[in-house]
């Protein structure tokens, strides 16, 4: 293989169009004669719609339609194993705050918004269940992404009671909303029973299939286009209600319809990371060697669908402990259905597990890194398989060196900078290396230029760049000769951009297609010439496949105000072959910033009596800003993996978002001596006596 282990740090192929404003994101697409749709969303979390008064809205000039359950066309809104149940104005029930209850279509954006404000909806409200603590509707899901939801190995309870050192703690994480900077947007046009949709989505193929099912038309009749995506983080992975509502509205008014969510609506029907309460028990001998781990996770789902935050999955495989139990329980609440959010399960799970490991390090009087090395899993403890590759030791060592771990005085509240308390913390990062089926065509034109075609998406992950780079390397062409086409269901199908599997999946397809094209050219065939590859899904096989890393943080805490400042973060990551050093580093850093938000800022707050969200905007829901981020660096630990997939790529999108919150939380403990187990770590939690 002539691919370098770490691909060149070339600039983004789409850099120029993004810095000049030329890149058209979904809402920027201007189609002739388009009308504007605006959703009206519920003002209660549970109950029924008593009446819809749209008289004033309809009487406004330029209002084309007001749809509610009273007059909306009947469509198939129910969910299945692969699709969430939707809110498509099919009945009078209200199941969560900000559920779509009406759609207004107008000639101009202002008219549509004004008319939406005039729709009067009366409700019969019922008392909602607003938290997992108060929910009595609990059950154990059977599986999570094909894994059993609960696993027991050995006899964890017996081993725990016999352990010389026991750490039993409860950690919790709040509801978080993805809040990509680009609001969800859909533009829909019908031509007879053919539907064309521009959509801000992480998965055009899924949108296509779902819309075909909802409107009961053949899949081939639906074309979905998504050229540029303004971030997704999992929130644009599901096909949500507004996508179908835009198409429904377009059909009703017989025009192209553009529907863009408002920022407050992005706290409604488009998913979120659910709240978790995680009980962790660690049993170890005096040297810190783990004999048992138990991780029992309670998280929320909606009253009408299921999503499991898989926080316990990581615990099955991260440390070599003979006795392990992980369980997942769901509690139904009157909130929207949660969904995947950057490192679903691993982000929340590593916060709990790695915080508990830090508590064990203190209980045993052992350095945090040394504790992890003593419990290093040489093979996957869950299934006994060999890891396809694992360079976690190297990550610990590199990260420790770069952050200056040896300067750390292990005693809490022992390091200061003037009146500020200093702290250093660390945690392990890990994310599974998955791969699903993907297709790609690589074509050489008569002039020798090459186009790579695959119906994947670019969320900001670098898809326009890295697959062109990959094909150029294989075909030994200058990068300027290769261009990537993506984001259109007319192209060969590619998977949802999620689960950090895109580089491995689409990359493998591009690799196979480009290699086939190269071989044919070498045999003397002449351009124009193209080769297609349909690379198969592959999970596991003989090896356990995971990426690993180590996260380190330095914080300063004001002892009087409880204000935490992240001064530095260092990540060291080993994720197989890296396609582009520059874009991979950016993804790692972005994941680490997500960890800062999780640790210190982000929390969607629900009113305990009404179940309504009280901070549904970016003034009340805090995400990290530039000044919240100190100096950061992400180091790439070179890793050759001959087993994980044909190109040895593991994926980098989510790894950086794992362990980062725990690294900050443990640094805050080191600085202050206060252990906050309920995220986010806000000043008042540090100031409690």
């Amino acid at each position: 293989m002539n691919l370098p282990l770490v691909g060149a740090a070339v600039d983004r192929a789409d850099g120029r169009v993004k810095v000049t404003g030329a890149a058209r994101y979904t809402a920027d697409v201007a189609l002739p004669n388009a009308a504007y749709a605006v959703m009206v969303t519920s003002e209660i979390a549970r109950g029924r719609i008593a009446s819809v008064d749209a008289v004033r809205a309809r009487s406004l000039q330029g209002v084309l339609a007001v749809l509610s359950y009273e007059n909306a066309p009947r469509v198939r809104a129910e969910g299945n194993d692969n699709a969430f149940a939707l809110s498509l104005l099919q009945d009078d029930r209200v199941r969560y705050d900000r559920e779509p209850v009406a759609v207004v279509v107008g000639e101009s954006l202002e008219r549509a918004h004004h008319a939406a404000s005039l729709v009067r909806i009366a409700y019969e409200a019922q008392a909602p269940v607003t938290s997992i603590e108060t929910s009595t509707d609990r059950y154990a899901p059977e599986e999570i992404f094909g894994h059993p939801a609960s696993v027991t190995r050995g006899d964890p309870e017996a081993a725990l009671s016999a352990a010389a050192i026991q750490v039993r703690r409860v950690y919790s994480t709040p509801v978080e909303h993805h809040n990509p900077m680009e609001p969800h947007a859909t533009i829909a046009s019908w031509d007879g029973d053919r539907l064309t949709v521009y959509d801000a989505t992480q998965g055009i193929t899924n949108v296509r299939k779902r819309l075909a099912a909802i409107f009961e038309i053949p899949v081939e009749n639906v074309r979905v286009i998504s050229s540029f995506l303004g971030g997704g983080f999992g929130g644009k992975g599901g096909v949500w209600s507004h996508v179908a509502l835009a198409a429904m509205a377009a059909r009703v008014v017989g025009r192209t319809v553009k529907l863009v969510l408002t920022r407050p609506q992005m706290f409604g029907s488009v998913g979120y990371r659910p709240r978790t309460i995680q009980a962790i028990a660690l049993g170890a001998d005096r040297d810190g060697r783990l004999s048992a781990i138990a991780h029992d996770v309670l998280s929320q789902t909606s009253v009408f669908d299921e999503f499991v935050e898989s926080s316990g999955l990581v615990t099955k495989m991260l440390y070599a402990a003979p006795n392990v139990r992980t369980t997942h329980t769901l509690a139904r609440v009157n909130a929207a259905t949660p969904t995947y959010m950057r490192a679903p399960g691993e982000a929340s799970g590593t916060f709990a597990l790695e915080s508990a490991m830090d508590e064990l390090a203190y209980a045993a009087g052992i350095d945090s890194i040394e504790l992890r090395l003593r419990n290093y899993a040489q093979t996957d403890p869950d299934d006994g398989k060999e890891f396809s590759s694992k360079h976690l030791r190297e990550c610990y060592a590199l990260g420790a060196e770069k952050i200056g771990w040896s300067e750390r005085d292990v005693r809490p509240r022992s390091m200061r900078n003037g009146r500020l308390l200093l702290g250093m913390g660390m945690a392990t990062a890990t994310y599974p290396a998955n791969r699903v089926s993907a297709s790609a065509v690589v074509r050489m034109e008569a002039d020798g230029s090459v186009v790579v075609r695959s119906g994947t998406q670019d969320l900001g992950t670098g898809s326009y760049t890295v697959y062109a780079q990959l094909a150029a390397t294989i075909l030994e062409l200058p990068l300027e000769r290769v261009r990537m086409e993506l984001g259109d269901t007319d192209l060969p199908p590619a998977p949802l951009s999620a689960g950090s599997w895109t580089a491995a999946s689409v990359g493998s397809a591009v690799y196979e297609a480009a290699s086939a094209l190269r071989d044919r050219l070498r045999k003397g065939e002449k351009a124009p010439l193209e080769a297609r590859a349909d690379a198969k899904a592959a999970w596991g096989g003989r090896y356990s496949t995971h990426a690993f890393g180590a996260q380190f943080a330095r914080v300063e805490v004001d002892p009087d105000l409880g204000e935490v400042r992240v001064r530095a973060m260092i990540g060291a990551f080993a994720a197989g072959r890296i396609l582009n050093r520059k874009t991979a580093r950016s993804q790692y850093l972005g994941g680490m910033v997500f960890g800062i938000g999780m640790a210190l800022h982000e929390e969607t707050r629900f009113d305990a009596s009404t179940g309504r969200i009280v901070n549904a905007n970016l003034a009340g829901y805090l995400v990290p800003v530039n000044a919240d981020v100190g100096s950061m660096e992400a180091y790439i630990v070179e890793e050759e993996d001959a087993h994980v997939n044909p190109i040895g790529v593991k994926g980098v999108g989510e790894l950086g978002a794992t362990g980062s919150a725990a690294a900050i939380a443990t640094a805050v403990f080191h600085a202050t001596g206060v252990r906050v187990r309920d995220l986010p770590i806000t000043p008042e939690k540090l100031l409690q006596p």
Partner: protein
Amino acid sequence: MNGEARELCVEPRVTLLDALREHLDLTGTKKGCDQGTCGACTVLVDGRRVLSCLTLAVMHAGASVTTIEGVARGDALHPVQDAFVEHDAFQCGYCTPGQILCAIALLQEGRTLDDAAIREQMSGNLCRCGAYENIVAAVRAVAERTT
């Protein structure tokens, strides 16, 4: 508008942001919140940074408005645009037009003295992709070259 006189007839309630996006087809300026909380809609009005979602178009008749489309000189990118590409100061690119216009104004105002100042001054422009470290590097690089 970007150095060109543009005539436009809009309702008084149309924001500057919607006038740009929906009436002038200048969609480089982004709507991230429409509430003045994210900075994605930042443009320069008579050289000053303005959140175009929080101001009405009719209030700026006769003003000089610079959007991301008016920053490059023909094919030659503005130094801040170049630096953003070189330092990979974005991922999805959605916040980028606002970040670049904010940075251009800061550089002109001489407020980019050190990293802490850059971070503080750029904090009105959210980036959910978390490109902050690279944004600082890009702004710093231009500041160093121009002073």
